[in-house]
C-alpha cells in the first residue's frame, strides 16, 4: 500500500505531501531540505 508523508505547516496548519509543496519551480529543489507550504507560502525545514 502506498503511504505519503504528511507535512503540516507550522504557520497556517495546512497539511500537505512533499509533492504538493510550493517548491516545484525552485531551481534548488533537489539539494534543499526546506519545504514551502502551498497554502500560505511559509518556508520551513523538512524534518
Amino acid at each position, binding site marked *: *500500500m502506498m503511504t505519503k508523508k504528511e507535512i503540516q505547516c507550522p504557520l497556517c496548519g495546512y497539511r500537505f*505531501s512533499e*509533492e504538493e509543496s510550493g517548491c516545484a519551480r525552485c531551481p534548488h529543489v533537489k539539494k534543499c*531540505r526546506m519545504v514551502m507550504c502551498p*497554502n500560505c507560502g511559509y*518556508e520551513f525545514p523538512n*524534518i
Partner: protein
Amino acid sequence: MGVEVTHMSDRVSIVLAGQPNTGKSVFFNRITGIGVISSNYPGTTVEIMEGWTKIDGLRVRVIDTPGIYSLDATSPDQMVARRVILETRPAVIINIIDATHLERNLYLTLQLLELEVPMVVALNMVDEASKRGIKIDHEKLSEFLGVPVIPTVATRGEGVFKAVKKAMELLKEGAGVRGKKLEYGKDIERVISALEEKIRREMREIPFGISPRALAILLLQRDPEIVKIVSEKHKEVVEFAEKLASAIESMHGEQSSIRIAKERYALAHMIANSVVEKQERRLLRDVIDEITTTNIYTGIPIMMLVVLALFSSLVYIGGMLEEIITTAWELFVVANVEGIITAYGVDPLLRVIILNGVLLGLEAGLAIVIPYIVLFYILLSVLEDTGYLARIAYLLDGLMHRLGLHGRALIPLIVGYGCNVPAIVGTRVLETRRERFIAAFLISIVPCSARTVVILGIVGSYLGIMYALGVYAIGLLLLVISGVFLNRILSGERVGLVMEIPPYRVPHPVTVLKKTWIRFREFVYIAFPLLIIGSIVLSLLEYFEMLDAVTRAMSPLMVTVLGLPPVTAVPIIFGIFRKEMVIEMLVVLSGTTDLSLIFTPTQMIVFAVVTMLYFPCIASLGALAKELGWRDTILIALGTMALAITVGAILNVALRCL
C-alpha cells in the same frame, strides 16, 4: 491550473470526501486493504487513491479524494476533489467528518449536500469526542441533514463497513435519495430561487448534471470554473447571476461569496449546537488555548510579552556571545596572527588583506552575525514546534482584519521575518495580482533575519532592547500603514486564508537543533563566504583609496539628509548584496567591532531604520523580478528607497530635537 475533463468509468463507485485530519485515509485503508493504486489526477500533481472492496458479493470501487476544507475551487486539491466528486456521478459520497470538530467539518458537508449527490456521513472519531465529553446525537444530525449518519472509529474499524453498506443501500434505492435542502437567509434564498428558475428555463443541460439550485449557488459565488463553463453557451445566465450577486453585495455590503460562506458557517453552527448533547469537557489545553489564542484581550498581551521575551533573549544572549567571541578572537587569533605577520615582515598589502579583510571580516561574522542568526533560528524553531507561531498568525490576522488587511495579506509579514526571498516566492500562492504586489512590497520592508542582525547588533547591543523594539515598532507601523494604503488604492479581489491551529506541543530539542542547522547551513554555505570576500574587496578598495569618491558622492544624502557619518555610504551599498554585509563592512571600514566609536545613539537608530527599509537585497530583487516582472520590481525598489530616505530624514530631525 488546466485540469482536463476526464470521464471516469460508470462502475459502482464510492467517493470518500472530508476535511484534512478526519481519519479519511485510515477509513480508506480499512475498506480497501491492499491493492491500492495511487495516481496523479490528469493534468495535475494532485494524488488520488483508488481501491476496491466487496460488499454483498459486489465489487465496489472506492476513490479517496484529497483532504479539503471546502469545495471552493481555490487550490489544486480542492479543484481535484470537486472534479472527482462531480465526474464519478452517479456515485455515493461517504463524507468523513471529525466528531471532535463537528462545526468546522459541517461546512464541507453542507457544500456536498448542495451538490445533491447521494451521501452518507461517517461521524468519525466518536471515541475521541467521547473522551472530551462531546456526545453527538447522530440521529438528530441525520434528521437535520436528511442523510444517514453512522458513528465510526476508523482506527478500530468500528462502523466503517456499516457506513459502506449504507452507501450501497442508497445506490440501490436510486438517485431519488438526496439530502435535505438547507435554507440560507431569506434574502439569499430569494436570489437563489430567481436564478434557479432562470436556469430551469434557459438551460437544458447543466454542467456535471448537478441540480439547478447547486448551479445557482455556485454562480452566485462566482465560482471561476463554473462561470467559465456556463458562459460558453449561456452567457445570459451568467450575466443574470452577476446582477443578483451584485444585489447581494449592495444588500449586505460584502462579496456575495463571502456572504454565502458566512451563512453556511452560521448553518453549521446552528446544527452543531443542536446535535451536541453535552458540552465539551474543558481540558487544561483548551483553557490554555482560550487564554492565549481565542480570547484576544488576553491573547494579544500574552503575544506581546512572548515577543518581548524572545527579543530580550536575542539581545542579551546574543550580546553575551558577541562579547565572549570577540574577546576570545582578539586574544587567541588576532594577537597571534599579528605577531606572526610582524615577525615575518609580511608585505603591507597582504597585511591589510589578512588583518582587515580576512580576520576583521571573520570576527564580524563570527561575533556579531552568527550569534544573533543562530539564536533567531533556534527561537523560530521553538515557536514553530510549540504551535505558538500559528497562534501569532491567528492573533495578528484578527488585528489586521480590523485594519482592512485580510487573511493572506498578513502571511508575508510573518514569512518575511525569516528571509524575504522565500516569502516573495511564496506570493505566487496568492490569487490576485493586486495581492501579489501588496505582499511583495510589504515583504521588501519586513526586517528579515539579516536586518534583525543589524538592528540588534547596533541598536540592541549599544542602546538596549527597548530601543531595538522601538525600531521594530517603526517597521511594523510602516508595514501596517503601507498595507492599508496599498489595499485601498489597488483594485482587485480580496482573498481569505484557511488556517488550522495545531495543538500545543512540547518541542523536541533534537528537532529544534536539526531545524536550526538546516536553516543555518544555508547561511554558512552561501552568505558567510560572501561576507569574507566582501571584506577582502573592501579592504583592498580602502587600501588603494578608491572609496573616497563613493563617500563624497553620497555625502549630501548620508550626511546632510540623514545625519549619518560619511563612512556609512559604502556599507549601505554593499548591503544590497546581503544585508548582513552592512554591519560587516562597517566593522572593516572603522577598524573596530565597537560601533559606539563611530555612531551617536541618534545615528544608530537612523542607520538601523534606513537599513531596515531601503532597497531589497540582490536575491530579493531576483525573486521579485521572477514573480512580478521588472516593472513592478523597479517600482517596489524605488518605493522602499523613498520610504527609507523619508523616514530616516524625519527621524534624524525628530531625534535631534528631543
